[in-house]
């Protein structure tokens, strides 16, 4: 022991680093362990807090907030959690869940299906664009579930079930592209964007051109690889149009008022979230989490008597995972593990403005392809934040692009590609882990190369 009660020995740092590696390994083996990731990380959070306390790493004496003459003592794990991020995720997921109850998203999906008149190529284009748009507004998993389940039903109706695998694979890959569109489209964006101080509008303006171009290229390549072509002949075209005309877009709408209200509120939500980026405004001070929670509350008023059903539908596993993850990372910071990783990243940062961010992007992608991209984003955000990088540094964007697109390399790289594979298997189609990698790698490689070029030379 030294005189400084919080000084950390090298052995302690290495010990905690091993704990971190063990946690990441357990997360990668989530399926094999039959354990939810919230439980895995919570176990490590409990262990980290206990060890951190026993080893005097944690600043318990600083956990006091003085408000006037009142001293409020906070548990050490409360300020460890980034409550802004938790509020955004809780608020937006509640808001989206209630909005989808109005039938808005299924209405859009069915209208697009009918507009395609059942032509396979047009369906692929429409579903691809819809996947990107839904991923941007909803979370990637919900977007994949909506578009994927409609794809299975509509291709079945059209009798082209043999194209299902191609459709679902392209849609799965596009969820992670769509997840790049806005600051709130994916969790790594929220974490890294918040740490970097990137505003909603800046994020959107910078990411949008890449998303548009890569969406087009992915759909084009998907159509070629999976041989998805337009129908030939008037008879085939009119039969396909007749088959999709049976879809009733109004079937899932319980109340026209709630539907219209949901549509208006969705538009207002996007505008207000964007407005919260404007500096020196009340909304900016209150933060995006406040906006998301407020909109969720307004929507809940519509369903006030059954609000508890929506609370049950909240992804508590994800929220508990975040809470525990932030605690683990906080302890790792006190244990100097993040500083150690930062020193390990130093060679990458010293590679220069071109090779450095590119290396960061590809290494983030590779890491995200085999384990959860959220711990990676949270750790890198903390490490890069400690380096006082500017908001427009390419390193932030390298992490954002790498963490999102890395999910396209393997089926376990992101929750939405896992959903795509689940739907594929549910419909009796064969797709192994290696089969997915073989099919997805050309797409992922192209997307990553374009992302590297975009981050380095366009942003």
């Amino acid at each position, binding site marked *: 022991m030294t005189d400084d009660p919080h000084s950390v020995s090298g052995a302690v740092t290495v010990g905690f680093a091993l704990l971190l590696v063990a946690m990441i390994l357990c997360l990668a083996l989530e399926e094999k362990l039959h354990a939810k990731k919230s439980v895995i990380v919570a176990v490590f959070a409990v262990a980290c807090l206990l060890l951190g306390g026993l080893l005097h790493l944690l600043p318990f004496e600083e956990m006091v907030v003085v408000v006037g003459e009142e001293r409020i003592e906070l548990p050490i794990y409360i300020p460890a959690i980034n409550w802004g991020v938790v509020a955004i995720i809780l608020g937006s997921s509640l808001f989206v869940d209630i909005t989808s109850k109005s039938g808005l998203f299924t209405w859009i999906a069915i209208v697009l299906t009918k507009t395609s008149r059942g032509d396979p190529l047009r369906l692929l284009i429409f579903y691809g664009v819809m996947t990107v748009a839904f991923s941007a507004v909803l979370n990637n998993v919900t977007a994949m579930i909506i578009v994927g*389940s409609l794809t299975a039903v509509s291709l079945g*109706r059209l009798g082209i079930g043999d194209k299902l695998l191609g459709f679902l694979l392209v849609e799965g890959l596009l969820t992670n592209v769509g997840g790049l569109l806005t600051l709130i489209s994916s969790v790594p964006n929220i974490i890294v964007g918040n740490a970097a101080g990137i505003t909603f509008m800046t994020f959107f303006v910078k990411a949008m051109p890449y998303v548009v171009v890569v969406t087009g290229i992915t759909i084009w390549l998907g159509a070629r690889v999976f041989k998805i072509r337009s129908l030939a002949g008037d008879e085939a075209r009119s039969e396909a149009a007749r088959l999709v005309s*049976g*879809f009733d877009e109004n*079937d*899932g709408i319980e109340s026209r008022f709630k539907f219209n209200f949901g549509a208006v509120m969705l538009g207002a939500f996007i505008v207000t979230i964007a407005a919260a980026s404007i500096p020196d405004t009340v909304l900016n001070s209150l933060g995006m989490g406040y906006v998301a929670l407020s909109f969720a509350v307004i929507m809940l008023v519509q369903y006030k008597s059954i609000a508890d059903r929506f609370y049950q539908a909240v992804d508590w596993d994800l929220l508990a995972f975040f809470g525990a993850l932030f605690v683990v990372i906080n302890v790792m910071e006190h244990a100097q593990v993040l500083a150690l990783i930062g020193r390990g990243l130093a060679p990458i940062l010293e590679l220069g403005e071109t090779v450095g961010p590119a290396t960061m992007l590809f290494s983030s992608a590779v890491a995200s392809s085999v384990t959860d991209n959220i711990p990676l984003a949270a750790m890198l955000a903390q490490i890069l934040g400690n380096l006082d990088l500017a908001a427009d540094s390419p390193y932030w964007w390298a992490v954002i692009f790498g963490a999102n697109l890395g999910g396209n390399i393997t089926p376990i790289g992101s929750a939405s590609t896992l*959903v795509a594979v689940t739907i594929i298997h549910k419909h009796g189609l064969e797709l192994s882990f290696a089969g997915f990698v073989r099919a997805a790698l050309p797409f992922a490689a192209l997307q990553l190369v374009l992302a590297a070029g975009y981050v380095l030379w366009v942003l």
Partner: protein
Amino acid sequence: MTKLDQFQSVFLAADKTALRYEKIGVEHVLVVSDRDGDAAGELLNRMRAFLSVIDDEETRWARLDGGGFSSVKQLLDTVDEQAPDLIVTYRHLHSSAWQWPHSLGEYLDVLTQATRVPVVVLPHPDAARALPHTLEHTERVMAITDHLSGDDRLVNYALGFTQPGGSCWFTHVESLAAFDHYLDVISKIPEIDTESARELIERQLLKGPRDYIESCRRQIAEQHLPFEIGEIVTMGRRLGEYRKLIAEHRVDLLVINTMDDDQLAMHGLAYPLAVELRQIPLLML
């Protein structure tokens, strides 16, 4: 229930079966009876008046009189040879068993299963069982089934046999006995809320046929067909429910399915209907 199942259910429910309307073509009608001579001729003339909706200049009417067959094989051979689009006959040909309403008679029993040709089954001419309004015209036709959604053939035949300006009823009676049986099982499964299951399953069971009838209405309006469409979609004890509906609506012709792809015998509901509903003509598909 996972979100994936939830959305899949939403899209499956939104994927509605729509009627594919096709005008039925009846060019050759074979009237089979156990009468001969004038009696057989009179029966044919009466049938031409009764089924005037399908009778036009090109319709060919033929008779197979009692003397023309004395075995099921002979009857089937004649039907094969003549290849009619419609057969008109009655129960218990060459038999006095019509006095006991417990079967169809050997000829009709085999005929309805051995051939895909639709059969109009009349009340037996000697039994005087026909309701007073029947055998005059086909202004009020009712198609009945326990699985209406997507049954285009049944609907097209029902429409084809309804006189212009007449009413065509599409009737779907879901078996209450089967429903109660499944709910009884569900009530013993703790993971499923019985009341919710009752409400949701009943709503969905009846929604399918209602949506299909709605598509029939749209088709009829688009084709400018001169029919009034009636809708009866309900749960009930089927035979009793059908008897009640037929009496209430003074039905001139009842249209039912008889073929069952899974078995050689008649469709489960068709046989008791064909045996018991002796007061009105039936069109058995």
